């Protein structure tokens, strides 16, 4: 049976890819586009790796699949957050549907895949899976020992190693850029080696792999990757970084070519990112602003501005738990990644306002906030929970989710200023990612209208002639599939039994919260300074 490949490029954007393609640095992608279709890929609210890749896997938005952030509220009204895990994915996935129909799957480096679901095939989780415990994340049992026999197997570089991440990006001195970029070139090669080994040994049907180096390079090196921002006359160091970035993408292109070649000429190939990317100059200190507006009260009112201790420790694990006055706070941001504001409903809160009143007051106040450097509103869009997260799990999402103008980032740290302009611009997430597809039934040589992230799962299932759950938010995108193909073989649908977590080998839940890791990781990724 022809295979279907999902080649995930975390954070990829045509802003970076197109110039590289035009200059011959990514010949395989150029060929793939010429033989198939391309389009912008519209991400979801929030345009963030865990919920967005979960949308790719399920065809649903967070209110239906249950994942909103790197961390999840323990309960809808809880101030405690858990580490988001596969148990939070309360939906059928492309892996589960394919497995249930007897097809064999490979899922490599996708977030939210720990503990690994029991699939018909292979899982090596990604996201924040620490390298020391990668063995626990591999499925089926015994896979880790099999992978250890591969020539370049190196879990320290394959999975998350906070030491390496922190070394490279916390403060990231100029001399550390090069090692950081080379690390990601090696990391992609290691994931490719695993995938190609599995494909060589077993006849798999649905193959998915996420390469996340683009996201990590773009956070740090945006000013070297976006041609509009590159220095006109780079110095020697800048030129070295530019060259290394381009080398990363060239090697990635070759990796993709090898995987597709191994999959056979009749394979359906889908290249997708979880979100796009753009420049980020400014930081908005959301909790400081909430304090100024009377929504948030710190426990220690005698606080003085100070440098944040760079040592990541347990003090940061549950920062908001320990630092807020919970009798008087009515709204707070728990993580910078979600761009979310949570409302605390309590009778003794400031002014005794109920949720609806706080919500209305917040929206009104947020619309007034101006970026001091541009004079423009810093909040481009405000998404209410009811609007953005409709579904059985919407109460686990933040009450408000913001889209900030001009790629500004949020910091949840206490601050005596509301805004800060970065010394150098970084990269940050934006809506429009990349979509490229080629294969039987896919249109050829066309640049088509925007595809939505929720359409990826229906398309993948359709390509394998599998039924699509009726509760997905997406469709088999008609601008991608040839009309005659749809006419000859209309999509099949099935009604799932209900919202249940993916089955694993155990019934356990992860319910630990580690904000030290959140902050360390987000800092490493450039979400916070």
């Amino acid at each position, binding site marked *: 049976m022809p295979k279907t490949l999902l080649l995930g490029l975390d954070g990829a954007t045509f802003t970076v890819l197109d110039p590289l393609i035009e200059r011959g640095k990514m010949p395989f992608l150029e060929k793939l586009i010429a033989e198939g279709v391309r389009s912008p890929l519209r991400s979801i609210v929030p345009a963030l790796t865990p919920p967005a890749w979960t949308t790719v896997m399920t065809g649903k938005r967070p209110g239906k699949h249950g994942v909103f952030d790197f961390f999840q509220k323990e309960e809808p009204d809880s101030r*405690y957050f858990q580490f988001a895990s596969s148990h939070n994915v309360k939906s059928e996935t492309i892996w589960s549907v394919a497995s249930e129909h007897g097809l064999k799957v490979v899922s490599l480096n996708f977030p939210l895949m720990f503990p690994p679901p029991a699939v018909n095939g292979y899982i090596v989780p990604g996201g924040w899976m620490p*390298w020391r415990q990668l*063995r*626990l994340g591999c499925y089926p049992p015994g896979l880790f020992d099999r992978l250890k026999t591969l020539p370049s197997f190196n879990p320290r570089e394959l999975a998350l190693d906070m030491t390496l991440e922190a070394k490279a990006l916390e403060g990231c001195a100029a001399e550390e850029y090069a090692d950081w970029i080379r690390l990601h070139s090696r990391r992609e090669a290691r994931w490719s080696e695993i995938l190609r080994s599995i494909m060589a040994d077993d006849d798999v049907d649905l193959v998915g792999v996420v390469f996340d180096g683009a996201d990590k390079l773009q956070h740090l090196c945006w000013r070297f990757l976006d041609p509009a921002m590159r220095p006109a006359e780079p110095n020697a160091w800048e030129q070295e970084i530019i060259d290394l970035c381009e080398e990363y993408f060239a090697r990635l292109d070759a990796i993709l070519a090898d995987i597709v070649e191994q999959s056979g000429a009749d394979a359906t190939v889908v290249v997708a990112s979880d979100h796009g990317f753009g420049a980020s100059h400014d930081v908005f200190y959301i909790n400081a602003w909430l304090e100024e507006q009377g929504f948030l009260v710190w426990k220690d009112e005698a606080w003085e501005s100070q440098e944040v201790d760079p040592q990541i420790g347990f003090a940061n694990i*549950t920062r908001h738990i320990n630092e807020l006055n919970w009798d008087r706070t009515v709204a707070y941001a728990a993580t910078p990644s979600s761009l979310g504001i949570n409302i605390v409903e309590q009778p003794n809160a400031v002014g005794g306002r109920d949720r609806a009143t706080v919500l209305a007051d917040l929206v009104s106040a947020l619309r007034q906030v101006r970026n001091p450097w541009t004079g423009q509103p810093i909040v481009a869009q405000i998404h209410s929970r009811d609007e953005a997260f409709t579904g059985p799990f919407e109460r686990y999402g933040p009450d408000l989710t913001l889209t900030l103008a001009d790629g500004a980032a949020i910091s949840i740290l206490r601050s005596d200023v509301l805004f800060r302009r970065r010394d150098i611009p970084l990269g940050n997430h934006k809506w429009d990612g990349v979509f490229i597809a080629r294969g039987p039934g896919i249109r050829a040589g066309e640049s088509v209208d925007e595809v939505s992230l929720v359409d990826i799962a229906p398309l993948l299932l359709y390509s394998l002639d599998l039924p699509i759950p009726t509760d997905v938010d997406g469709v088999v995108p008609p601008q991608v599939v040839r009309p005659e193909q749809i006419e000859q073989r209309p999509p099949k649908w099935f009604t799932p039994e209900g919202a249940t977590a993916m089955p694993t080998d155990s019934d356990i839940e992860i*319910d*630990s919260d580690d*904000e*030290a*890791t959140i902050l360390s990781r987000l800092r490493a990724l450039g979400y916070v300074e």
Partner: protein
Amino acid sequence: MTRKADPEVLAAILDLINDMADDWEYSGPVTEETLFLTDMGLESLDLVILGTMIQQRYGQLPFAEFLAEIGQRPVEERDVTVGELVNYVSDHRQTVAARE
């Protein structure tokens, strides 16, 4: 006086740590007094994942509250010994059992 750890829970957690230590080449001894971060060099995320496996055996535990409590300690004391984790699991495992 140091509390004596539940031998069954201690043995299970030591087994788990020793199994994984083979993958990351930790060769030091692991005892009740061993600190996860300082002595074994783990990251806090490792603790989260370790907590997952512990809960697989002992049921859901309120780890977020546990870590929040640790976060309130002075910086130099923000670490967890194997014995402390064993005691925590033992205490809350009993609570879970009592509720059931």
